[in-house]
């Protein structure tokens, strides 16, 4: 009994020491906290990370107390970590600011309500491209600081097209049908396929469809597959391109980027964020130009303007420094026009802040693109991209479409494919 008693006392002393240590640690933590340390999660060391770094450097000049840690985490991993931790209700270790792709955000907003800080309370959302704001709006509040625009264009090799007898004027304001004709000539005369596509992806379909203001889902809720003229036309166009042999099929991102950096394909229809990758081969300088996206002829609402990918910044509700995080985004990402000139020149990042388009860099022409004012073009197109509601089930819809891509490429019936897409999407939406 006596022994036990001394044991308890010893335990007590130990516990007291522990509590003391904990108090000291938390005191240290509090003092560190007042000098806000903000953690940012994002992907792509050639694009998002340097852009964010530039932003934090600008902010810390005026706010030396705030420090930033930028972690390079893949998009898949970010989604996975957020999802697991939100579900478990454990928010320790989550960052203060996170980057999320636009067509993926609604599922977080809807399935984990209250996990993000509504930014429309403190930032004027009318300053940004509206289709970007719409993507992150839920229940009347907007949650994102719209960043990277997915506004798209048709990047093409002037040298290959010239060999096939085409001039840059021949690519202005054309239809996909016309582009297919050009592609056939390019293939016949140069041996290069027109474009490449990941057969495990649906980027091309997405680009064609959004240019008409249509989407896989109606109002973000109901499947819009059967009886969606834009989707049907997009799939038919893709099938024709595959049949003519002007699409090079690739697997995965490395293969995809390799197909144009190594000069195999003549054109890249893609979001503006691909610019950095295209420009990563300096000896192709002067060989590239950018044309507006071809139009999906015969479909109501068809335009030359579309979007693919693109992502935005979010502040987590679990952040201990929400105010600092919001202030940082508001000050730099939501107001610093000069900052956008820098990331445009260095990373080819076309932001979504409309005022940034007035900056000097946006008016510059780029020697890599034959002295064309590419940025001016992209920012003009940016304001004209039709808004669509990605809704909650876009990942499911895209998966269902991807499942049919090889089949369609091999000449499968489009109506059957649409039925299969619709069935799979409905099954997954349960």
């Amino acid at each position: 009994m006596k022994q036990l008693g001394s044991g308890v006392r010893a335990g007590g002393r130990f516990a007291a020491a522990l509590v003391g240590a904990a108090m000291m640690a938390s005191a240290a933590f509090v003092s560190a906290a007042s000098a806000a340390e903000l953690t940012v999660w994002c992907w792509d060391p050639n694009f998002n990370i340097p852009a964010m770094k530039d932003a934090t450097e600008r902010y810390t000049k005026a706010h030396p107390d705030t420090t930033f840690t930028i972690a390079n985490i893949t998009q898949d991993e970010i989604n996975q970590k957020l999802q697991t931790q939100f579900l478990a209700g454990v928010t320790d270790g989550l960052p203060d600011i996170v980057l999320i792709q636009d067509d993926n955000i609604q599922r977080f907003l809807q399935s984990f309500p209250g996990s993000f800080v509504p930014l429309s309370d403190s930032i004027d959302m009318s300053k940004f491209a509206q289709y970007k704001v719409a993507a992150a709006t839920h229940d009347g509040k907007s949650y994102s600081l719209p960043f990277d625009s997915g506004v798209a264009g048709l990047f093409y090799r002037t040298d290959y097209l010239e060999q096939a007898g085409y001039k840059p004027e021949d690519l202005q304001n054309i239809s996909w049908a016309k582009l297919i004709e050009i592609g056939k000539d390019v293939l016949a005369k140069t041996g290069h396929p027109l474009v490449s596509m990941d057969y495990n992806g649906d980027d091309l379909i997405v680009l064609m469809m959004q240019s008409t203001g249509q989407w896989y889902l109606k109002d973000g809720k109901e499947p819009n597959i059967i009886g969606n003229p834009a989707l049907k036309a997009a799939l038919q166009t893709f099938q024709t391109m595959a049949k003519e042999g002007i699409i090079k099929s690739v697997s995965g991102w490395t293969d995809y980027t390799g197909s144009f950096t190594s000069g195999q394909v003549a054109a890249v229809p893609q979001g503006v964020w691909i610019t950095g990758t295209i420009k990563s081969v300096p000896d192709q300088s002067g060989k590239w130009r950018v044309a507006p996206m071809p139009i999906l002829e015969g479909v109501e609402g068809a335009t030359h303007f579309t979007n693919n990918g693109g992502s935005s910044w979010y502040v987590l509700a679990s952040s201990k420094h929400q105010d600092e995080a919001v202030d940082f985004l508001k000050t730099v990402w939501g107001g610093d026009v000069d900052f956008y000139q820098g990331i445009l020149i260095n990373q080819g990042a076309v932001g979504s802040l409309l005022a940034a388009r007035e900056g000097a860099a946006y008016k510059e022409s780029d020697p890599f693109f034959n002295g064309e004012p590419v940025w001016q073009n992209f920012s003009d197109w940016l304001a004209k991209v039709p808004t669509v509601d990605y809704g909650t089930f876009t990942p499911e819809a895209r998966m269902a479409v991807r499942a049919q891509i090889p089949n369609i490429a091999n000449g499968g019936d489009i109506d059957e494919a649409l039925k299969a897409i619709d069935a799979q999407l409905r099954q997954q939406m349960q």
Partner: protein
Amino acid sequence: MAKTRLDRSEQINGWAFVMPALVLLGLFMIYPIIWSLWMSFQVGRGANFSFGGLANIQRLANDALLIKALTNTTIFFFIQVPIMIVLALLLAVALNDPTLKFRGLFRTALFLPCVTSLIAYSSLFKSMFSTDGIINQALLTLHVIGTPIPWLTDPFWSRVVIITAITWRWTGYNMIFYLAALQNVDKSIYEAARIDGIPAWARFTRITIPMLKPVILFTTILSTIGTLQLFDEVNNITQGGPGNATLTLSMYIYNLTFRMMPSFGYSATVSWVIVVIVAVLSFIQFMIARDRRRAT
């Protein structure tokens, strides 16, 4: 009395010794298993879920994607496992031959694949089998093929790549089990057979295989479980594509949980499908092995 006290003390001490392990086991194994079972009766998205009774099981029946994943897994299972087991067995017998030179070198070479990182070898296979990869270039140079094979973008060929990859990775692993078992086979049996004039092939089928039956059963069950849990290779080489041609059950569970709008309840149900299939297949394999032993 003294004995009882000793017994009791031994019992208490015994429990005290295993308790930490039991607590950890309970916390990190039993609890998650029970929780996932409870989870499989929940419906809803993300953090908003509620008890759904048998709704998830009903959903299983109409899930075309699950059927697809199940079909793919079955194809991998029926093609890959027999190829691998036979190959491993033949290699083990060949490398067990004492007259063979550089045996150690060959054994190491064949075993090396299964100590390689799954991610590293998957990435390597992906680049080797890409349209402009080394495999196509070699085949083109040797005039085996006229146009590059779309290894990763065609549903049939992508399955071939996955089967090749897992065979490369796991054959050596199974071979080691057979080699170990072969060391325990009494050499006098083979000597007697040789004296009786039994040809080599008959020695292999009539002596080696029956002697190795327990090990073959063991490796088959391990491979069954491995195939049903196939994930890394598919995720890294084909992402389940093209057109879901290589989607496996594990990949499907991953997609349900992390790629799509999270439906944790339903993905738990699909996980339990794997558990049930593994249990059933293992049971069948045990039964087959047991019946044969009785018959002979």
